């Protein structure tokens, strides 16, 4: 073994990346939400899927999501180096090079789309390709640094997985999959802005426009309420489609009442009131929003699990002798 083989020739002085560093480029925490919502989209679809094909489809959606994360880290390496939250990511911390992230992102994008095409057909593969393009190009490269509505646009990319899962099972787009998309899409802004109200971010230092900084906190509170009001009919509407039912509707009614009441409280509060109690209401709404999405998709899974017994409407009418 020579000395030359013990140094990183592409970046002299920099340590060589480990397997874990490459894995970190895929944003594994974001991947978990992608896997869960895609799995629900696949399972609640009315067409049964072979378990192995279902596994491959979910794997491809997760890898595709990870690939777009790597492309995002490649492009955003300059601002990641400025912000506290992202400073320790593999590129700004010097563990991997931007070129490595770009290569990994492109290779995994190609892999995930090609294998999903083989496993689930052209629509699911096309939707995955569009999602990667949307997140990496439309959001990361174009709109993230140019509009304070960047969270809304980024939310669209995160909302596609249940639609891809549904398309993998049925080969089609339906009102159910569009509403699952809309649920995640409308949920993202109030969820993120509630967090932005009580966490001091340094997006401004990095030149990324955030609503709290460009339009002020009063406007952010208005935006939270507006998006929550628009979210409610989407969430409840899903309950009246073929994948909904009384169990979903009951859970959704409670969650939406809670979320709406929280958003209304945030709208009514002044900044002085929020500061006085240490942003207690803002933290509470953020907590509610965390459970909100998980429990909605969980309720859809319960409805799907009840299908062998005729579905929850059938069970309910049986219980009450209708």
């Amino acid at each position, binding site marked *: 073994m020579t000395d030359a083989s013990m140094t990183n020739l592409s970046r002299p002085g920099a340590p060589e990346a480990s*397997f874990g560093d490459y894995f970190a480029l895929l944003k594994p925490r974001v991947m978990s939400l992608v896997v869960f919502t895609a799995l629900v989209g696949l399972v609640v679809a009315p067409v049964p899927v072979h378990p192995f094909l279902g596994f491959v489809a979910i794997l491809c959606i997760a890898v595709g999501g990870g690939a777009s994360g790597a492309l995002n880290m490649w492009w955003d390496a300059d601002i990641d180096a400025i912000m506290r939250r992202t400073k320790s990511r593999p590129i700004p911390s010097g563990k991997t090079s931007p070129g490595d992230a770009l290569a990994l992102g492109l290779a995994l994008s190609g892999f995930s789309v090609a294998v999903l095409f*083989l496993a689930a057909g052209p629509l699911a593969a096309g939707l995955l390709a569009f999602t990667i393009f949307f997140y990496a190009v439309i959001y990361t490269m174009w709109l993230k640094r140019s509009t304070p509505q960047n969270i809304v646009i980024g939310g669209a990319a995160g909302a596609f997985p249940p639609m891809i899962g549904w398309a993998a099972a049925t080969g089609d787009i339906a009102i159910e999959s569009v509403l699952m998309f809309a649920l995640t899409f409308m949920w993202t802004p109030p969820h993120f802005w509630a967090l932005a109200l009580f966490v001091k971010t340094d997006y401004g230092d990095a030149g990324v426009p955030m609503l709290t900084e460009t339009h002020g906190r009063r406007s952010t509170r208005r935006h939270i309420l507006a998006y929550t009001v628009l979210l409610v009919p989407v969430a409840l509407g899903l309950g009246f489609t073929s994948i909904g039912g009384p169990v979903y509707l009951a859970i959704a009614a409670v969650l939406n009442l809670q979320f709406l009441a929280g958003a209304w409280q945030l709208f009514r509060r002044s900044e002085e009131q929020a500061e006085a109690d240490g942003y207690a209401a803002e933290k509470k709404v953020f907590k509610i929003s965390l459970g909100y999405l998980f429990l909605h998709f969980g309720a859809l899974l319960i409805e799907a699990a009840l299908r062998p017994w005729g579905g929850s409407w059938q069970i309910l009418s049986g219980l009450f002798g209708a």
Partner: protein
Amino acid sequence: MRVEHELHHRRRGRNLGVGLLLVAFVGLIFGLTVVKTLSLGSIVELERFDHVARPQLVPQAKEAGQ
């Protein structure tokens, strides 16, 4: 005397990871092939993947033979 550098541990871990991923990829494609093949409706559909020309798959050829 042979001294093991920390870098070698990291490289070994990375190479092992890539190796396992490649094996998993082979398994994935093999599994896909098996599932897709077994889910075909009839033997005629399976023969479509054969690179040998099979006149019996063409209805006109079948009729001409009768």
